[in-house]
């Protein structure tokens, strides 16, 4: 331990940074920091201030209400309690259901598409294609295809399933459509990650007599770990921020059970101009997402 520290200090001494250059890193970071502060940090702090008021940007009186907007979220007798937690539950459920598919399926597809075969580019394009469609196009199309009484899907399957108006089918539809729509994006990320795994590792594995499975377990997966962390984290956040599908495909039916937190927050803030309450809700959601992200990072660090 002592030698290590000694080595580190000699290394530092060996490449001295002139004192006058102390500002250099900060200057390099300045453009980003300025944008970050103006567009992320300041609004975030301002949001806390807003959440402590009964806030409407057009009204003269924006009375300070302290923590009322927060306590209302935890008070079963308040107007927002039931709807807010139902929407949080919807968000959680959707994340829980969609993330495994969005992490595993694209990996499998990327593995297949990473091999060389005729028409590989065509299939790569095919899986990525839906991702370029806008959410409105995707949802309108699927709403008609999945219509409980007139839709093509039920007709093809010979079933009578209310895909967009009943549970659990609403969740099947929301998750299914989302996976179909966005799996290409994660697939591309995985593919790019696979290009970065040195070929000689595979050669070495072959020399050691590794089969396909062993190759995947001991070379591909470890090589993809940073990519996996990225994919899982962004997918969780994207799923937790799901808005359009719930807004357009199911419209929260039945009775608001598939209405996600973001849809509800938007309605409170921009629909009903209750920005204080909406801000408080976003902070509760943010807190939940921070906790999930921290756990996620911990898990990955623990493994490596």
């Amino acid at each position: 331990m002592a030698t290590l520290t000694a080595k580190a200090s000699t290394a530092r001494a060996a490449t001295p940074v002139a004192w006058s250059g102390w500002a250099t890193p900060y200057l390099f970071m300045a453009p980003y920091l300025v944008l970050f502060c103006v567009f992320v940090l300041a609004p975030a702090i301002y949001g806390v201030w807003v959440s402590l008021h009964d806030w409407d940007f057009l009204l003269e009186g924006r009375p300070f209400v302290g923590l009322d907007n927060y306590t209302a979220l935890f008070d079963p007798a308040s107007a927002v309690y039931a709807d807010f937690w139902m929407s949080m539950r919807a968000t959680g459920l959707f994340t829980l259901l969609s993330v495994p598919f969005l992490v595993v399926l694209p990996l499998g597809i990327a593995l297949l598409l990473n091999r060389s075969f005729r028409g590989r580019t065509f299939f790569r394009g095919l899986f990525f294609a839906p991702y370029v469609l806008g959410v409105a196009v995707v949802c309108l199309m699927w709403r008609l295809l999945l219509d409980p009484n007139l839709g093509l899907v039920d007709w093809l399957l010979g079933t009578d399933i209310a895909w967009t108006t009943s549970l659990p089918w609403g969740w099947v539809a929301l998750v299914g459509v989302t996976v179909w729509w966005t799996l290409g994006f994660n697939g591309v990320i995985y593919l790019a990650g696979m290009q970065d795994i040195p070929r000689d590792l595979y050669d070495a594995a072959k020399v050691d007599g590794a089969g396909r499975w062993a190759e995947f377990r001991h070379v591909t997966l470890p090589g993809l770990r940073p990519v996996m962390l990225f994919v899982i984290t962004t997918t969780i956040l994207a799923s937790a921020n799901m808005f359009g599908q719930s807004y357009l495909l199911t419209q929260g039916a039945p009775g608001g059970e598939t209405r996600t937190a973001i849809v509800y927050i938007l309605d409170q803030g921009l629909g009903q101009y209750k920005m204080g309450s909406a801000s408080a809700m976003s902070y509760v959601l943010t807190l939940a997402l921070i906790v999930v992200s921290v756990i996620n990072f911990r898990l990955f660090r623990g493994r490596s």
Partner: protein
Amino acid sequence: MQMSLDNLTRRRALGLGLGALVLTGCGGGGGPRQAAQQPATTAAPTTYTGPAVSLSFWNGFTGGDGPFMKRLIEQFNAAHPTIKVTMNVYQWADYYAKVPAAVAAGQGPDLGIMHVDSVATNAARQVVLPLDDVATALALTEADFSPPVWQAGVYKGARYSIPLDVHPLGMFYNKTVLSKAGLDPDNPPKTGEEYLAELEALKKAGIQGHWATPFPFTSSMQFGSLLYQHGGQLFADDASVSRFAEEPGVQALTWLVELVNKGYSPKNVGQDADLIALQNGKNAFNWNGIWSINTLRAVKDLEWGVAPLPQIGTKPAAWAGSHQFVVFKQRTSDQNKLTAAKVFINWISGHSIEWAKAGQVPARKSIRDGAEFQALTEQAAIGSQIDNLYFLPSVAGIGDASAVVDQAINAAILLKKSPKDALTEASAKADKILEQNRKKYGA
């Protein structure tokens, strides 16, 4: 003047240094409430003699109605060389989010259209100006319109909007489907008994005749119509409490849910599927908005008609919306622009027969009674309900409370909750929202 000074001090005391937002509050020298008490200053509103002005006019006419309004504006511009009106169209949802922000930033348009149930909220939020003097200057009175339409634009004793049109719910029907079930396609049902008898006949012919949609378009409008037909109300007149969970509301929602239970409607009807099924010949009746006229007209070989809603309850009633002209608050008011705006509102209102062709009922009585409007058979059929329409009370934030009803109807028609339970739960929630709004906007 007194009040704006007070406001400034109060704001400074609160220390909310949001320059742009603070400024708007006192632009134009005083809030709308004082301006409402000012006497009418402008006369001769039907002609404009001042210097050339341009007016920006925002609305949400993104559908088939957009081109009609555009043509009207072109005609207006041609007839008024010194006034140039330009139109910006947004999706209604974007429009309602954008306009208050634009007005707050001092970048608001001069003129706009608002749905009648948004007028009070925007009046309370000081987005729109009172228009009593416009009405006076244009010599418009209740008699020129109809009492509910005219009264709907009044908030706290001041008028904030001038009606352009009303768009009520009507009963659309597929004539081919009715004939197939042995029913008279030219004599649609007028009472509850007749209606249920026809649904029964349709059922025997293997057709589900009234698809009960669980989605706000248009289940909430159907529910509301039935509720008022049964003598109920959505809210008390002063919106102190919600009243939709009382007996008439339960009867109304039960009637809709029974359509599903009795097999007159499929279960789990999807969004817009009721109207699509009508076009496909799978559905016989659809209670939908007057805007469906042009949709159905575009369907080839579809034999359809439209009639007033049948009277299911004890009296006739139908849901209606109304597009109304509003004038937005500016940082500095410009008398010339205001006069030009009055001329514009009056001219469009007077030419709203053109607007009727876009699939609306003109609010102006003289035009509704004219031969030219009566010749628009479909519009005239729906328009005949004009005296039986209801609107939400003119109370700020009423839309927030009525949104709760949408969810209750959704749950009930999807058979997740009994009509009574769904409405009672929603009613408790709506009352809390009404109370919050009273606190926020002042009783």
